[in-house]
């Protein structure tokens, strides 16, 4: 019976809704305002830090400018050392490869001509002994091919003639 009696008037109910709505929006506004304030202050703090760092950078640059000559020398040396390393590492070492080939040829041979380029080295050999050629072609050259440091691709014999002594032209091809 008591539950059916409504003591709060409709107007008071509406006023309560309005005040709750007002409180909610005021709270929302307050939160957003405080957030905006915090973010603005933080942003200003960061700007100040950025300005201070910029000043430090300018000051450091000024100090470096005081060492102008030494700085230039160090930079030039570094640059040149890098270039020198690059050159040395990429040199084709033509003379080293030629020297390794000549080292495998016994003294019984005369080396009549050498033509060396980056991918092929041609050697003209002469000897009076045919046995020496056998030894060279069957033992020494196969051993040379096994030397992986040479990057030898193949060996070709372009001519074998007899004009007084025996003459052999060998072409050594390399992987480059």
């Amino acid at each position, binding site marked *: 019976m008591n539950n059916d009696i409504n003591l709060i008037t409709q107007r008071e109910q509406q006023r309560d809704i*309005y005040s709750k709505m*007002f409180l*909610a*929006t*005021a709270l*929302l*506004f307050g939160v*957003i*305002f405080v957030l*905006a304030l915090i*973010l*603005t202050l*933080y*942003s200003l703090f*960061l*700007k100040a*830090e*950025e300005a201070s*760092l910029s000043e*430090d*950078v300018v000051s*450091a640059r000024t*100090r*470096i400018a005081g*060492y102008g*000559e*030494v*700085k*230039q*020398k*160090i*930079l*030039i*040396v*570094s*640059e*040149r*050392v890098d*270039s*020198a*390393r*690059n*050159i040395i590492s990429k*040199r*084709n*070492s*033509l*003379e*080293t490869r*030629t*020297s390794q080939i*000549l080292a495998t040829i016994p003294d019984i041979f005369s*080396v*009549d*001509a*050498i*033509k*060396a*380029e*980056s991918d092929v080295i041609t050697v003209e050999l002469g000897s009076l002994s045919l046995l020496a050629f056998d030894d060279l072609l069957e033992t020494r050259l196969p051993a040379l091919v096994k030397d992986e440091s040479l990057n030898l691709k193949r060996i070709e014999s372009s001519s074998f003639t007899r004009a007084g002594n025996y003459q052999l032209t060998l072409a050594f091809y390399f992987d480059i």
Partner: protein
Amino acid sequence: MKQKLFQIYTKYKKQILPLALILLSLFIAFRVILPQFSLISETNSIIENKKQELETLNNSIRVLETTSDDAVSEDLAISTNALPTSKDVTKIFGALSSAASASNTELNEFSLKIGGVFGKEVSPADASAIGVPQVSVVAKVSSSDTSNLIQFGQKLDQTLPLSEIKQIDAVGNLGTFEIKFYYKPIDLNIVSKKDKVTPLSQADRNLLNQLAEWNQ
């Protein structure tokens, strides 16, 4: 009309303030909060870059403070002997003569293809695959022993200025060598703009020592 507006105001006056607060909140959110987020992110990134730049500059200052002018001048002399600043004919002749003397060969003649004489950029004829300009030299060397001719090339490899033999043509006791001598001009404009100075690594130091040995 005025009366009608007053009636509307009276009817909705309690909703106006919450509505105004909501609109104001939206305005603050879109005009203040959101731009601040992007500004903060941008400023943080700038600060991070500045900190790195400052650290690099401070490291450079430390390197400059601890480097002796005499030591760096010596390094500069070695490195410019290895890579002269221009097509230095005297140094090229010196290297050829020195290699000939060390390999018991005789330098009969040599010729240079000078190429570009002046220009702000390296002429295409002087450009190399490595990116360091070079000058072409043909040297004729003689020796009674063919192996000495090859040794001439090996000695030249260990002589400054740095060079690379592109072709060897040896017949009898005469050898013709096509050689590229490297050089590297200094661009002070680029060098003076750089502020990052790093100390030489141990590998750099070892290479300089090797170049110094070849310089003797």
